[in-house]
C-alpha cells in the first residue's frame, strides 16, 4: 500500500469530492473549488486514475458532463476508507493545527499523555512537540487551566471542570466554524451517521470527544427544549447547545461534574429557563442513565439563556415582541447605545424600528452572556472590522454603555455583533425602495445580525429581487417550507437541494457573490422575458449636505466668500455624481443651494428713510445702498427705473411691498439685496399702494436667488409684515424680526 502515500493532499480532496457527489462533476467546478486551473485538475486526475487502478475503480471523463467514478458500491467504500482516511493526516500540519490536536487529545484523555505519543500522532520531532506544548500551555492559561509536565509520567491537564468544559467548547468553536458544525449536525439529522464519512479532521475529534453518545437522541432533547422555551434557536445556538449537552453528558458519564457557587445557582434558579433546564436534566437522566446534579442543571440554564433568539423580520412579529418581551430598561439602554453610535457616525438611526427592536432583542441574551461569563464567538468579527471599520468603532463606543452598566468587559466578538446590527441599519437607510421581482428565500445559519445584514445588503444591491422568506437550514431540510413560489434560494450554508436554484454566498456578500446573483437575475430575466425595457434605477452611492460640509470647512478655515464657495462645491460634487441633499434628505437642485435672504440682506443693506417723495426717488435711494456696497453699477439703477417705466408698476408684489430689479447684465457685480423702509409710504401707481418696504435684488444669474425668494415669499405671506417692520427705528432690530419671521 506504500504507493498511496504519494497521493497529494489535493488529489485526495478531489477523490473525496467525487465520492461524495452523486452526479458527474465538471472539471471547471473542481478547478473553482480548489482554486487552480482546469489544466492542473486534469493532471491531478491523471494521478488519481493511477491510484484507483488498484481498486477496480474507473475514473470516467465524459465530455460536456464531467468526471465520475464507476465501480461497485463496495469498491467505492473501500476507496473511501483506505484512500481518503489514510490521507487525512498525510499532509504537513500547521503549528496552529498541531496546537489544537494536542489540546483535543489532552481534553479527552483521562490518563497522562507521553510526549512520544504526540510525536507519532503529529509526525514531528521531540523539540517541535515541546515548542507546541508551550503554546498549548499559554492557551490553557486563558481558561485557568494548568498543563502539568512530569518526567517519566507524561503531561496532563489540571483545573476546574467548568473551565475544562469552556476550553472544550472553545477548541471546537475555534477549529470548526459554525457552518461546519451545522453541516455535521445535518448529517445527524439525515440519520446517515451510521455510514458517516465525516469531514476528516476536527469534526471527527468532536465525535471522539463526545464518545459513543447517540447524538440523535441529544438532538431530540434540544428540539424539545426549544419548544418548551417558546422560541426557535438560531442554527448556531442550536449547534452550540447540542455540543454543550453532548460534552456535559460524556463528562458526567466519566464521573466529572462541575461546581457552581451557591450564590450563582440561586440566581439562576429564579430564571424561567431553569424549569426547562430541569426537565432537560430529567430527560438526560432517563435516556443516558446518568445522574445530573444541580450544578449541571444550572449550567444548562446558562446555555439556554445565552442562546440567541432567531428572528423573522416581518412587522407583525416585531409588534408582538415589542408588546410582550422587552423591559423598559432594556429599551432605554438600546436607545442610549444607538444614540452614541449616531453621534459618532453622524447618521440618524434611532428612527429605524427594525434596528431598535432587533438590537434590544439581541441585547437581552447578550446581557446574560456577559453577566455569566459565557462568551459567544463571532465568526465574522474580522470581516466586520475590515469592511465596516467606522461602524465597528461606533459599536465599540456604544458597548461602553453596556460595559459600565454590567461592570463587565465587552469583547471584540460582542462588539462585532453590535456592529452588524448598526451596519444593517445603515444599509437599510441607504437602500432604495424599488419594486422587487425575483422571489428569493434566504437560508442562514447564524443569528439575527448576519441574516439581517445579508437581507438588507441583497435588497440594496439588487432592486430586482424580493426576499420573501428567511429560513434556517434545519427548517428547510424538514420540508416545512413551501418553496413552489421561490425563484432562488440564497444560502450561507452548504445545501443539497435539487428542486430549486441555489446560490451559496458569504454572509457579507463578496463581489463574486454579487456577480453570480446578478448573472442569475440576468438569466432569469431573459428566460422569462421580463420586461427588459425597464431601466434599472441606479442609486447614487453618496450624498452630502452642503451645510454640514461648510461647517467642517469653517472650523479650520476662514471663508472669504461663503456663497461662492457653496456654489463651487456644488458644481464640483455634482460633477462627480455625488448628490447634494438638504437636511430632510431630499436631493437639491443647483438653485436650491443658493444663499438665503438673510445671507444677502444685512444690517448694512437696510435703510430707514421717510424723506422719500416718489417712486423714482425710492428706486434711486434703494439702488444707492447696493451701489455703496459695490454690488451694482449706476446703470443697474437706471435700468431698474426704465423697466418700471416700460412695464408698469408690477414691481409691487404685495400690499405695501415692492421688489425692484433689472437683469444681471445691466450691472450686477455681486449677488446682493437691499431694503428701504419708508414708514410714510410711497405711491407706485398700483392698487397695493402705499409701498412702505422696497426690496432691491441684484441677481447674479437666473436662479441663484431661489432660496432668497423662497424666504421673501414666506415674509409677504405674513400680512402683518409691513406694520411690524415699519415700527422699528434701526436695521439691527429689523434683521432680528425678519429672522424671527422666516
Amino acid at each position: 500500500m506504500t504507493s498511496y502515500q504519494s497521493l497529494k493532499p489535493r488529489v485526495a480532496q478531489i477523490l473525496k469530492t467525487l465520492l461524495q457527489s452523486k452526479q458527474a462533476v465538471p472539471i471547471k467546478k473542481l478547478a473553482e473549488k480548489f482554486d487552480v486551473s482546469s489544466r492542473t485538475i486534469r493532471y491531478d486526475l491523471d494521478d488519481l486514475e493511477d491510484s484507483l487502478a488498484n481498486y477496480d475503480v474507473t475514473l470516467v471523463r465524459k465530455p460536456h458532463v464531467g468526471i465520475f467514478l464507476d465501480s461497485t458500491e463496495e469498491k467505492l467504500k473501500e476507496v473511501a476508507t483506505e484512500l481518503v482516511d489514510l490521507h487525512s493526516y498525510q499532509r504537513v500540519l500547521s503549528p496552529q493545527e498541531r496546537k489544537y490536536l494536542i489540546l483535543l487529545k489532552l481534553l479527552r484523555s483521562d490518563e497522562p499523555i507521553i510526549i512520544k505519543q504526540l510525536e507519532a500522532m503529529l509526525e514531528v520531532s521531540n523539540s517541535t512537540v515541546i515548542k507546541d506544548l508551550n503554546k498549548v500551555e499559554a492557551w490553557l492559561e486563558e481558561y485557568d487551566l494548568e498543563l502539568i509536565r512530569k518526567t517519566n509520567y507524561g503531561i496532563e491537564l489540571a483545573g476546574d471542570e467548568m473551565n475544562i468544559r469552556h476550553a472544550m467548547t472553545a477548541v471546537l468553536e475555534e477549529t470548526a466554524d459554525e457552518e461546519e458544525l451545522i453541516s455535521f449536525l445535518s448529517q445527524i439529522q439525515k440519520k446517515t451517521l451510521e455510514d458517516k464519512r465525516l469531514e476528516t479532521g476536527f469534526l471527527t475529534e468532536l465525535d471522539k470527544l463526545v464518545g459513543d453518545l447517540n447524538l440523535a437522541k441529544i438532538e431530540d432533547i434540544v428540539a424539545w427544549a426549544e419548544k418548551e422555551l417558546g422560541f426557535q434557536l438560531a442554527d448556531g445556538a442550536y449547534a452550540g447547545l447540542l455540543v454543550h449537552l453532548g460534552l456535559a453528558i460524556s463528562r458526567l458519564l466519566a464521573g466529572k461534574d462541575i461546581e457552581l457557587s451557591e450564590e450563582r445557582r440561586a440566581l439562576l434558579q429564579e430564571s424561567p429557563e431553569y424549569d426547562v433546564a430541569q426537565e432537560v436534566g430529567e430527560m438526560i437522566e432517563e435516556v443516558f442513565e446518568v445522574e445530573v446534579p444541580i450544578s449541571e442543571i444550572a449550567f444548562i440554564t446558562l446555555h439556554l439563556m445565552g442562546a440567541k433568539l432567531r428572528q423573522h423580520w416581518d412587522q407583525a412579529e416585531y409588534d408582538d415582541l415589542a408588546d410582550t418581551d422587552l423591559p423598559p430598561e432594556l429599551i432605554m439602554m438600546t436607545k442610549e447605545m444607538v444614540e452614541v453610535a449616531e453621534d459618532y457616525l453622524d447618521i440618524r438611526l434611532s428612527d429605524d424600528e427594525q434596528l431598535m427592536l432587533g438590537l434590544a432583542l439581541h441585547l437581552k441574551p447578550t446581557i446574560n452572556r456577559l453577566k455569566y461569563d459565557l462568551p459567544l464567538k463571532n465568526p465574522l468579527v474580522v470581516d466586520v472590522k475590515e469592511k465596516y471599520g467606522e461602524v465597528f468603532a461606533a459599536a465599540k463606543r456604544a458597548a461602553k454603555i453596556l460595559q459600565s452598566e454590567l461592570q463587565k468587559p465587552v469583547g471584540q466578538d460582542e462588539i462585532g455583533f453590535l456592529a452588524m446590527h448598526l451596519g444593517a441599519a445603515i444599509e437599510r437607510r441607504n437602500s432604495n425602495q424599488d419594486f422587487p421581482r425575483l422571489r428569493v428565500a434566504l437560508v442562514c445559519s447564524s443569528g439575527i445580525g448576519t441574516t439581517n445584514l445579508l437581507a438588507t445588503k441583497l435588497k440594496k444591491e439588487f432592486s430586482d429581487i424580493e426576499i420573501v422568506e428567511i429560513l434556517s437550514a434545519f427548517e428547510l431540510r424538514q420540508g416545512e417550507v413551501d418553496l413552489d413560489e421561490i425563484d432562488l434560494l440564497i444560502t450561507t450554508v452548504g445545501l443539497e437541494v435539487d428542486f430549486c436554484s441555489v446560490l451559496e454566498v458569504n454572509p457579507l456578500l463578496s463581489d463574486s457573490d454579487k456577480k453570480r446573483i446578478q448573472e442569475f437575475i440576468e438569466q432569469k430575466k431573459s428566460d422569462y422575458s421580463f420586461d427588459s425595457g425597464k431601466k434599472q434605477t441606479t442609486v447614487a452611492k453618496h450624498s452630502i449636505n452642503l451645510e454640514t460640509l461648510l461647517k467642517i470647512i469653517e472650523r479650520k478655515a476662514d471663508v472669504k466668500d461663503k456663497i461662492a464657495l457653496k456654489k463651487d462645491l456644488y458644481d464640483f460634487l455634482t460633477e462627480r455624481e455625488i448628490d447634494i441633499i438638504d437636511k430632510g434628505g431630499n436631493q437639491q437642485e443647483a438653485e436650491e443651494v443658493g444663499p438665503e435672504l438673510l445671507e444677502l440682506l444685512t444690517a448694512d443693506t437696510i435703510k430707514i428713510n421717510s424723506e422719500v417723495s416718489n417712486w423714482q426717488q425710492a428706486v434711486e435711494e434703494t439702488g444707492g445702498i447696493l451701489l455703496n456696497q459695490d454690488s451694482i453699477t449706476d446703470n443697474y439703477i437706471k435700468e431698474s427705473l426704465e423697466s418700471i417705466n416700460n412695464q408698469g408698476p408690477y414691481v409691487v408684489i404685495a400690499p405695501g411691498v415692492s421688489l425692484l430689479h433689472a437683469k444681471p447684465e445691466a450691472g450686477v457685480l455681486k449677488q446682493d439685496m437691499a431694503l428701504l423702509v419708508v414708514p410714510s409710504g410711497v405711491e407706485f401707481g398700483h392698487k397695493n399702494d402705499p409701498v412702505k418696504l422696497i426690496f432691491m435684488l441684484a441677481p447674479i444669474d437666473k436662479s441663484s436667488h431661489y432660496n432668497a425668494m423662497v424666504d421673501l415669499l414666506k415674509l409677504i405671506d405674513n400680512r402683518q409684515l409691513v406694520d411690524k417692520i415699519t415700527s422699528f427705528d434701526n436695521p439691527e432690530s429689523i434683521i432680528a424680526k425678519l429672522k424671527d419671521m422666516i
Partner: protein
Amino acid sequence: MLKIYAVCGHGLGSSMMLKINIRKVLKEKSIEGEVDTVSLGESSGLDADIFVTFPDIVDELANRHDREKIVVIDDFSDLEEVREKILGAVDKLNLN
C-alpha cells in the same frame, strides 16, 4: 412630463416667486412636472403645456402663445389662488 413656464418681465423676481408656489402646489398633489422661469422676450421661442403670468403682461404673452395655454395669476403670493388656477389648468390638460 408636464412643463410649465412662469413668465414675467425679466424672468427673475416675480416669476421666481410664482414658480416657488407652483412647485408647492404640484408637490402637494404629487404631480410630476417641471417649472421654470422665463422673461417675456425669451418665452417666444419656447413651448410648454402651461404659461403662467400676471395681468400686466398677459396681452403681450397672448401675442406669442396660445391663449388657451395661459393662466393669469393676480397675486402669486396667494397660494390659494395659485392652487385653484394651476390645478384647474392641469385638469383641463388631462381631459384633452
